């Protein structure tokens, strides 16, 4: 009996080992990170001037950002190329890698959450949405850049960055990231030619928009009144914030409770719902992302369009637009008592708490927010950037003649709702607002539910 048991235990162990070993030899592609030693062979380096080639310790810094880092829309290299070049000339022993994330903010955010939960050291610098800062900072996932503990950013760099933007990326007094490398502010595009034809001035209030749209739509068959992005997504939430503040509402009351069920907020949501009911905005807005929503305006089929400022830079390009010279761009309207508001979405860069090469990451980050790279970013992607000298640079002004229009819009910039619970709040708002504009819920019920859920999420 005892001998048998011994055998049993032995075979047990063997089976476990065999199972494990069997799983071993399968090929496992891995993202290789850590320091790699690169020995530059003399024969191949025809252009290298040094006669003595010393083996160099190269540190790899991985930047996580979406596909836009691989693209350029103007007379400059794609951002990742510009950054690689700048870093290479200043720090030859740092190698920059791009890890491409999703372009959809939600998937992108969830990807980061899994990385952080895994305490993953691969990614050193992360592109973060302004509205993620509070959440990631509260969770302790980002490295503060001004807390007196290395890595801290060189004050000479931050001195040249626009303070208001830095403020947006500060949480509880600590600077969590530098930004924006690119940013968006919402505003109202309108058909200048049509408004002039029917004797209208650019709208000041939301009621004006309705009056103008109704008049022109009656006389110009086939025209859509007003397009915006109403897909159940962050873009809808951004639009909602603009209406909310435009009607005099606000995010939270003084006690920190959700204030989006106020009479002003209700008026704002009813206005949005009525836009669709009255046919000024087509029912399809509820399916449109930003890129879908601009199509009708760009092809000359819509009178108004709400969107970010980035269309400015190609609306006068006849290859891409059918409304060359026929449009105007103004801050979003507001009802009396409301605030003309454009939601600001800035994309910043932060250093991961779990990064294994924070010092090198900081050096790369500083290069990214120094003037040469910032200018390249402006030329390849359009504004807005954090560096203040970019806006007065002659090349930039020559490339973007519509730049002054942005100043008006920037004055109305509305800081995004800042809360560690942002993802949940954004989801709740997207769901409830979407339920209202698709007719699933009455506006009042949607807002009541939204606030109840938000207070539950934030613990009020």
């Amino acid at each position, binding site marked *: 009996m005892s001998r*048998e048991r011994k*055998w*049993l235990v032995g*075979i*047990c162990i063997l*089976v*476990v080992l065999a*199972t494990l070993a069997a799983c071993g030899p399968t090929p496992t592609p891995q993202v290789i990170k850590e320091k790699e030693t690169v020995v530059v062979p003399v024969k191949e380096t025809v252009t290298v001037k040094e006669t003595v080639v010393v083996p160099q310790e190269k540190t790899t810094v991985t930047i996580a950002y979406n596909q836009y880092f691989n693209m350029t829309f103007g007379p400059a290299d794609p951002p990742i190329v510009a950054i690689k070049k700048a870093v290479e000339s200043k720090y030859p022993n740092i190698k920059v890698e791009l890890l491409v994330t999703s372009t959809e903010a*939600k998937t992108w*955010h*969830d990807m980061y*959450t*899994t990385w*952080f*939960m895994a305490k993953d050291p691969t990614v050193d610098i992360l592109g973060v949405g302004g509205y993620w800062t509070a*959440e990631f900072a*509260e*969770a*302790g*996932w980002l490295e503060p850049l001004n807390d007196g503990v290395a890595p801290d950013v060189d004050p000479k760099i931050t001195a040249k960055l626009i303070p208001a933007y830095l403020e947006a990326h500060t949480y509880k007094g600590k600077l969590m990231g530098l930004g924006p490398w690119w940013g968006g502010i919402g505003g109202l595009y309108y058909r200048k030619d049509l408004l002039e034809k029917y004797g209208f001035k650019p709208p000041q209030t939301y009621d004006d928009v309705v009056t103008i749209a109704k008049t022109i739509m009656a006389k110009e068959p086939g025209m859509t009144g007003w397009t915006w992005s109403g897909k*159940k997504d962050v873009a809808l939430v951004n639009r909602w914030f603009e209406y909310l503040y435009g009607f005099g509402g606000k995010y939270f009351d003084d006690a920190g409770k959700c204030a989006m069920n106020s009479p002003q907020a209700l008026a704002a949501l009813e206005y949005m719902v009525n836009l669709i009911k009255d046919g000024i905005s087509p*029912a*399809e807005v*509820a*399916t449109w992302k930003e890129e879908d929503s601009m199509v009708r305006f760009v092809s000359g089929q819509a009178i108004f369009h709400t969107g970010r400022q980035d269309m400015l830079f190609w609306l006068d390009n006849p290859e891409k637009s059918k409304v060359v010279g026929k449009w105007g761009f103004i801050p979003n309207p507001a009802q009396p008592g409301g605030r003309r508001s454009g939601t600001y979405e800035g994309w910043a860069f932060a250093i991961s708490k779990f990064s294994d090469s924070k010092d090198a990451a900081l050096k790369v980050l500083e290069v990214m927010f120094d003037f040469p790279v910032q200018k390249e970013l402006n030329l390849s992607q359009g504004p807005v950037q954090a560096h203040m000298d970019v806006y007065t640079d002659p090349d930039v002004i020559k490339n973007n003649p519509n730049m002054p229009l942005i100043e008006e819009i920037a004055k109305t910039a509305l800081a995004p709702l800042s809360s*560690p*619970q942002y*993802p*949940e709040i954004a*989801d709740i708002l997207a*769901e*409830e607002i*979407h*339920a209202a504009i*698709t*007719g*699933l*819920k009455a506006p009042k019920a949607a807002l009541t*539910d939204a606030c109840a*859920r938000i207070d*539950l999420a934030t613990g009020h």
Partner: protein
Amino acid sequence: MKIRLREPTIAFLFLLPAFIGVIVFYYYQIVQTGIYSLHNLQHTADWQTQPFVWFKNYATVFRSTYFWQSLRFTVYFTFMATVLELAVGLGMAMATFWVSRWLGGILRAIIIMPWVIPPIINAMIWRWLFHADVGLFGYILVSLGLVDKPPLFLTEPMLAVHSVIFADVWKNSSIMAIFLLGGLAAIPADIYDAAKVDGARSWFRFRKVTLPMLLPTILVALLFRGIDALRTFDLIYGLTGGGPGTVTETLSSFAYKYYFTYGKFGLGSAYAIVVFAIIVGLAAVYLSRIRRNMRFKE
């Protein structure tokens, strides 16, 4: 030295790898999820250092109206999907037996096709077919003159719910039919022949002979599909993302959202445990069914 292993010992050794794996990847995970669900975990899974909150997370779950809404949808989805899949699957399986041998072979090959499509890819396919402007379905309805413009299949609440169900029925009727084909094949041919000799008409034959013989298979297949439908995640994630509003959110997609979007591991785990509890109920029926039909060597 010659070793003599008794049969129970051999059986134990043979079962061991499967047991270890199932314990590690299922049972241990449930215990772990249970532990998570009793802690307040925000943006971390290190439960040892986080506050223990008893059943507070469960209270939050049951208080949330959205839990009840998603529960309602999940149950409605499961019920509609399995019933329709049974109807369509049974129809397809019967047809395969009814048509000539040659056509039957073709039918079997056709029926098996939707089954091989991964759920997330099924979601992609239907996203394109239900496209608001150029989707095939809207286009067909418009060309038939039934509607003026393509309906918003994935945006209008009632339509969205049933579009999701339709997409699921399309894919999973296939596996239902395959199961029932197995059941039909097992009905001895002489019973049919006897019924035919008696002059029974086809409907009567179906009701009095086929259906009773097939009933156990139908029941097991229904339970199998029901358990699967209760756990639906991929289809929702890829097709509607839970929209419009939260109309098509299932319990599984809720749990996933709490984990990886909100970073609330405690609350997400409470959701997951609730899903598990619901499924265990159905699973118990399923397993007792299977157990009754055991014919293994005793």
